[in-house]
């Protein structure tokens, strides 16, 4: 799909920007709002469905610039409806980088509904595995050590994460070069596997500004106030100390509940087990949740500890 490259010119009248992405939408839109100042920036998460997008579009009069991370098929549906109003589109990647949080996972039930954990949407693979394998809570807690992490590939998640990131940038309009300084391997730049920190969001926002507003964009680039919108209760997953060591940083094994309370590992395991017991009938078969490599690694760990 090709669209005319019409850039926002601050000196003239300009149309609003509509940001459509996942949970990364809000911080990007907020950053752009601050950078543009007088340009209207509207935002919606496509995860809410087409109806929500339409509701937001109704609030925009006339043409708009689209910043989107929608998948091609979804984008096509969107454009079939609104292509006459989209003046220019910047396709952005959704940042997904599990190298720092390889234990983190979503859990869906048999009806594909996302199940809650004690900290919100994020679950621990090791805890879910332990529950489904009928290990005791104590046995589960003991599995949180570097031998287990090594066996299940938690220390080897960097290269595949980088590869995936390169792929995602490759199918966007942004250049992977903006990630270079983050990919040096000596810093943790994600709050969870899909929640980039303020540094990444700012880099993305700056890159989007360059695409939309090349004339004079440099005045704004780098001046977007850094606010970590994707850091807070229910938004983060801990970087375990053994994994943080790889990046020369301090890790922790504290879990942040949506109500702001903190759980240590023992309590996170106990509360997860309680919730999984309630879900039991709706949980899927163990092979549906884990890759064969993960299952092999866990079996190796369990065999060694017997």
């Amino acid at each position: 799909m090709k669209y005319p490259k019409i850039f926002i010119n601050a000196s003239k009248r300009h149309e609003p920007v509509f940001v459509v992405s996942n949970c990364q939408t809000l911080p990007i839109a907020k950053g752009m709002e601050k950078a543009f100042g007088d340009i209207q920036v509207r935002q919606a998460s496509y995860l809410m469905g087409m109806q929500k997008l339409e509701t937001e579009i109704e609030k925009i009069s006339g043409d708009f610039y689209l910043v989107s991370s929608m998948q091609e098929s979804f984008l096509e549906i969107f454009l079939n409806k609104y292509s006459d109003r989209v003046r220019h589109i910047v396709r952005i990647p959704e940042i997904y980088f599990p190298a720092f949080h390889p234990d983190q996972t979503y859990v869906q039930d048999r009806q594909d509904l996302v199940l809650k954990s004690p900290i919100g949407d994020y679950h621990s693979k090791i805890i879910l595995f332990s529950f489904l394998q009928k290990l005791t809570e104590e046995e589960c807690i003991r599995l949180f050590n570097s031998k287990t992490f090594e066996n299940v590939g938690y220390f080897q998640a960097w290269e595949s994460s980088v590869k995936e990131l390169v792929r995602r940038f490759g199918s966007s309009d942004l250049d992977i070069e903006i990630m270079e300084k983050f990919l040096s391997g000596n810093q943790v730049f994600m709050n969870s596997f899909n929640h980039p920190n303020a540094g990444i969001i700012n880099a993305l926002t700056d890159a989007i500004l360059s695409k939309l507003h090349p004339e004079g964009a440099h005045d704004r680039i780098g001046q977007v106030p850094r606010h970590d919108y994707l850091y807070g209760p229910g938004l983060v997953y801990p970087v375990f100390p053994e994994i943080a060591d790889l990046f020369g940083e301090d890790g922790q094994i504290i879990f942040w509940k949506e109500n702001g309370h903190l759980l240590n590992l023992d309590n996170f395991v106990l509360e997860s087990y309680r919730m999984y017991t309630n879900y039991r009938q709706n949980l899927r078969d163990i092979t549906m949740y884990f890759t064969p490599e993960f299952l092999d690694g866990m079996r190796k760990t369990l065999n060694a500890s017997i």
Partner: protein
Amino acid sequence: MHPYKKLDTHAFWKKVILGRPVGLVDPMMGMPSFKISKNDKVATMGSCFAQHVSALIKDLDLNFFVADSKSGTKQEGFGVFSGRYGNVYTVRQALALLKFMESPGEQHYENWEKNGVYFDSMRPNAIPGGFKSIADLEDDRDQLTQTLRNLLTEMDVLVYTLGLTEGWVSNKTGQIFPIAPGVVAGEYRAEEHIGFNDGYQEVKGQFIEFLDLVREINPNCKFIVTVSPVPLAATHSNQNVLVANQYSKSVLRVVAQEIALEYRETYYFPSYEIITSLAQPGKYFQPNLRDIYPRGVGHAMRIFKKHFIDATSSGIDDSKQSNNSTNRGFRDVNGKIQCDEEIIYNMESD
């Protein structure tokens, strides 16, 4: 076609340093090594950083060789190194130890006293609590000769960590001190106690002499040579401590390299690079820029284990190490290593 075309991955900065987690940088890639098996008696000697190797060997249930003829607690100095010789910072000191072993009566050794407790000036911090009497001290010192003899005769591998080029010597007796008289105990006499700072040729010559003496007794012993990444706490060289540190580490690093290249069954282990290089810009030093974070030690020990430990054929159960959460284990160790130099670091100058 050009000469770099055929080189292996490890030869290229971009391929092995750039864009990878600092903890996965492996400077042993492409370096010669051998595997220590479960039965090999592994001894350690050198500056306080060498204690981390002792801890790893013990942690992995390998054969950490303790050559002392009697046993005791860590507080009494047992098991920190392979004998109660304490931290050996300079190669001169190591050589002096072997000469003491060969002819203990030839050298006069100072006995240091502080608050009614006696310290062996050869190894003042090796027995942290000191001795109740000079007789006890001298009796224990006599036993050290047997310890050293056992060590040299029986060890299969010696991991030697080069620490400093600076030290102290008595111009009356020729005794080499691991730490200046007066710091731990004893009395500093300016006219007698002279600071030295060995250069490249001296250190290399001393090290060759040391290795030859070991090989005379134990021709099959293998050596793993490392350089301590811990900077000098203080220098007596009249130079800025940063400059003096760079000089000292440069000399030791060059000697380690050359010895490993020229001496048979001698291998260089790059703990110095793992901790101090640009590949982990300052990530491994604590705020005082001397102490090393456990994650840095953990990184060095992971690489050591990967290249020097034969985990598969020897039946080593390395889950033992991880059950105390691996690097968390090193966290504990880091807080417990015994360094004479710490005393100097914490002292104020007049």
